[in-house]
């Protein structure tokens, strides 16, 4: 969709520059002239929201890092110092911690959008896989970041998760010691986690670059799931149409963000993390942040530790195979009644898994968690392949323009 740019700068300096480094042409073709399907709904604004959240996390994170001191004896106090004494430190910290939650919320909406409208299907498989990699890196970044304030839950979380590697036969314990920098989670662990937590967001940013690049080769999918056939009839230019819509959506998202930061900043935070980490005292109830709860439930649902770890990683990795599990040529769930039904079942399963992940494990809970885990994997491994050929789909519109016109009364010319 974006071939060699036809962009010609107006000024002589611009033309001189452009013939040596065509960066303005790149920006022009990607964010100005880029053709956008005219039937996109607000689900397509979450990419822009995610870009905004990544930048917000990096800026607030860099400011926090100027005052944060990573070690077992200083980490907790330095966060307290940021909250009390640094000018607007409380604001930076509440933005960063609540920002992580909103980043994940936007990411989940973005992923479910992709599943619903079949955005992972050809020709967008690579675009989708890059997204799965970004999600995985985000989860790793958030886990590392959560350890940094060195509260009781930081310590418990770091211990539970790093202990997972001990499930690996023969070398597991050795790897755990190597990760910890000692014989247990401690000062060296926070220090290296800080280093990695600072590093990963920039790797995420690099993958976001690839993600956008791939997007601009294939073009965007759309709610009707039919490809662009005629650029004039089916699309509008990115600027001003998508730009304005995205900016508006970000402003609405900011209202939600501001509500969290200024009015309920501790709603999503675990109270136990305001107690300093103490290796001798484990919190009564160890739980991860809400956005990792479904995976925690899957981990605990499996009786064997090693298999639990395998299931945990498989539950994310399986997303990468979706383009080959769902081979139904009709993309959008709008025209797939059976898929649509199972999609919503899947959403409910994910929410219930999240709820189970937040509860104390017990016999009844474990049983429900197992049933839901089977349902989670069943959606990908059974429902998707079967519906690939067994589903009676509805007729899809001939083109995007037809889909738009079908909805609206034809305007008088």
């Amino acid at each position: 969709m974006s071939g060699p740019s036809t962009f010609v700068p107006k000024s002589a300096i611009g033309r001189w520059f452009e013939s040596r480094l065509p960066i303005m042409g790149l920006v022009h073709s990607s964010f100005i002239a880029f053709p956008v399907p005219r039937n996109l709904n607000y689900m397509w604004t979450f990419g822009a929201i995610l870009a905004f959240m990544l930048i917000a996390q990096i800026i607030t994170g860099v400011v926090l890092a100027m005052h944060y001191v990573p070690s077992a004896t200083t980490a907790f106090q330095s966060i307290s110092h940021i909250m009390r004494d640094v000018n607007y430190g409380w604001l930076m910290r509440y933005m960063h911690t609540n920002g992580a939650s909103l980043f994940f919320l936007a990411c989940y909406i973005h992923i479910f959008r992709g599943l619903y409208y079949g955005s992972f299907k050809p020709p967008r498989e690579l675009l989708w896989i890059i997204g799965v990699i970004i999600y995985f890196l985000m989860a790793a970044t958030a886990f590392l970041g959560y350890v940094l304030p060195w509260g009781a839950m930081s310590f418990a979380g770091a211990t539970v998760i790093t202990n997972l590697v001990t499930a690996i036969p023969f070398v597991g314990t050795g790897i755990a010691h190597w990760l910890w920098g000692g014989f247990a989670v401690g000062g060296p662990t926070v220090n290296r986690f800080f280093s990695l937590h600072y590093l990963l967001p920039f790797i995420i940013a690099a993958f976001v670059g690839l993600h956008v690049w791939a997007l601009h080769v294939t073009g965007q999918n759309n709610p009707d799931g039919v490809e662009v056939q005629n650029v004039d009839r089916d699309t509008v230019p990115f600027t001003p149409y998508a730009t304005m819509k995205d900016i508006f959506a970000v402003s609405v998202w900011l209202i939600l963000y501001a509500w969290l930061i200024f009015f309920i900043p501790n709603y999503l935070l675990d109270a136990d993390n305001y107690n300093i980490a103490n290796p001798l005292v484990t919190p009564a109830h160890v739980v991860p942040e809400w956005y990792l709860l479904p995976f925690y439930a899957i981990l605990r649902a499996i009786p064997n530790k090693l298999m639990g770890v395998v299931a945990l990683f498989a539950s994310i990795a399986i997303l990468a195979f979706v383009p080959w599990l769902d081979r139904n040529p009709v993309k959008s769930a709008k025209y797939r009644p059976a898929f649509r039904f199972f999609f919503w079942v899947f959403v409910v399963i994910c929410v219930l898994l999240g709820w189970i992940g937040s509860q104390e494990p017990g016999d009844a809970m474990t049983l429900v968690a197992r049933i839901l885990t089977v349902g989670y994997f069943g959606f990908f491994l059974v429902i998707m392949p079967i519906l690939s050929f067994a589903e009676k789909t509805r007729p899809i519109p001939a083109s995007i323009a037809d889909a738009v016109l079908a909805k609206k009364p034809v305007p008088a010319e």
Partner: protein
Amino acid sequence: MIRFDTKALAAAAFALALAGGSALAQETAEQPKPPRESWSFGGTFGTYDKAQLQRGFQVYKEVCSNCHALSIPFRTLGQPGGPQFSEDQVKALAASYQVTNEEPNDKGEIFKRPGTPADIIPRPEAYPNDQAAAAAFGKAPPDMNLLAKARKWERGFPWFVFDALPGLQYQEMGADYIHAIVTGYTHPDDPQWNLYYPGHKIAMPQPITDGAVEYTDGTPKTVDSYSRDVAAFLSWAAEPNLNERRRIGLGAMIFLFVLAGLLYATKKKVWESAH
């Protein structure tokens, strides 16, 4: 042909979750949750009540500070949005404590000196470290600087959803907990039994009784008002920027709503030509 009914499915899921939530609530009936009190700093725009924070500090200083540390600098007691003691009061207060100087003197001796507003309030003299306190009580009294943010309990579905909504939001659990603990010694024959402490066996003996602190402003000298005042004070100690945060938040909200409205109008105008 099976009809797939998404709405019925959603309703079923909701009913299931509701049933799960109430089953859980029943399970824990014998461990009552701290009652929800009304606080000047509750709600969406509540702010701390300066007079109450000053009384709360008095309770902390005369009673709780015998066992609990409160690691905040003296100077913060004079900051706006807090108890806001005058500069002279803060100086006099700090000077009434002996603090250990960080650096040794030029003879290499560690020495004590009167405190200054920049110093952190020293630990209780009787218990120079957590081990000493734990040896005396069986468990060390927690530092009170973040206590009001460090205690929450499960609210269960659907309450936890309401707790996030404008007008209904619940951010004062810590204050409710402290108030409940201090007033929760309901077995007069067992001074270590507390209605609200998880498991009921608490290492803290009943810390305060009616009339223990002399209020000068006519506030009733009861355990109930002591516990409210000290809970409010500790909420401030844990979240000293609340007043400022809400003030800025209100401005940010107004700005964002106007901005979003203008952007929506612009977006609509731009898109008109596309259809």
